[in-house]
């Protein structure tokens, strides 16, 4: 797997973890507060592990780039503070992520394949959470509308050769994807908040 593709996966995990963590303390029920916080922690942990395959200085890679240099898919950037959309993204992201992690487990680089296997074991629990919500909401018009709205973004998570499987798993027609390499207006405010400590204390913050 080439470095740009790995960087894209790591950036997806960092940014989706950041977005999931925005529910900490304000999720509609305590169970989901716990779930989103835990999922966010795992996703950011995965980002750290993938960044460490690419660089010795993981924090520099995570926080010292300009917003336009991030390789994340637009899906993970969206600032979704509405539950139907939040759960739609969780579900779509997990389905797409499972497809690419499964492919990565067969990577020719043993360090990449080994890490993918480890990540896959953890993601199994994220998938259960997404599946549970999907089973509950699949017939709700509000949820269906949110899935359709996010669908072009979800396609953009995967390289074109893996999209066929996503199409069959989600059950919607393939449309024009909102591609990786473009960014939404919502990335810059996220980046400003995410990197503020790093930018204000470049030598390392002390508590």
């Amino acid at each position, binding site marked *: 797997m080439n470095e740009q593709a790995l960087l894209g996966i790591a950036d997806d995990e960092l940014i989706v973890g950041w977005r999931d963590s925005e529910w900490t303390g304000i999720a509609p029920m305590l*169970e989901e507060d*716990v*779930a989103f*916080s*835990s*999922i966010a*922690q*795992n*996703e*950011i*942990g*995965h980002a*750290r*592990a993938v960044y*460490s395959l690419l660089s010795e200085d993981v924090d520099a890679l995570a926080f010292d780039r300009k917003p336009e240099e991030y390789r994340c898919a637009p899906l993970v950037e969206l600032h979704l503070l509405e539950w139907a959309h939040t759960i739609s993204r969780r579900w779509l992201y997990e389905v797409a992520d499972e497809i690419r992690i499964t492919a990565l487990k067969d990577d020719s680089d043993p*360090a990449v394949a*080994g*890490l993918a*296997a*480890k*990540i*896959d*074991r*953890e993601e*199994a*629990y994220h998938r*259960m*959470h997404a*599946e*549970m919500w999907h089973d509950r909401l699949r017939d709700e018009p509000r949820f269906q509308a949110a899935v359709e709205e996010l669908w072009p973004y979800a396609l953009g998570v995967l390289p074109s050769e893996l999209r066929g499987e996503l199409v069959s798993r989600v059950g919607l027609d393939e449309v024009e994807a909102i591609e990786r390499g473009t960014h939404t207006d919502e990335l810059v405010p996220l980046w400003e908040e995410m990197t503020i400590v790093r930018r204000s204390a470049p030598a390392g913050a002390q508590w």
Partner: protein
Amino acid sequence: MVGEAQVWEALEEIPDPEIPVVSLVDLGVIRSVDVANGHVRIEFTPTFLGCPALEVMKRAMEEKVTELGAEPEVEVISDDSWSTDRITPAGREKLRAAGFAPPAPREASAPKLVQLQANVFRCPYCGSTETHLENIFGPTPCRSLRYCESCRQPFEQFKTI
């Protein structure tokens, strides 16, 4: 001169920062210890990649080796070689006694929701299997929350990894 057995003994004294009833050796996260010319190399596998206690555990191991008069090198191995199956029998019993139900054995494929929803998980307090899943997630990434219908106690179930 420091020997391997001495290093293992010292590592047994390091508690897990989040579940201090078990040591790092009980958890099975230390994959290997190699000693050569006063240099101790430890291979360490994290439980969950996002575990915030990683750095704390790494530092604790380095300090223990330094106390033995040797030079430490701790390498974090991020592959699939750690599984909850590596928790030692003694470690599982310590977990259970502290109210954490030990993990079910790992299977070739990842666990499924329907398995977690089945009432085959044993309550660490009364031993009943009349328990149900309350939340896949818990206070740390490695734990789920369950409830025992028999003794009416919530408890934490170690996830299978």
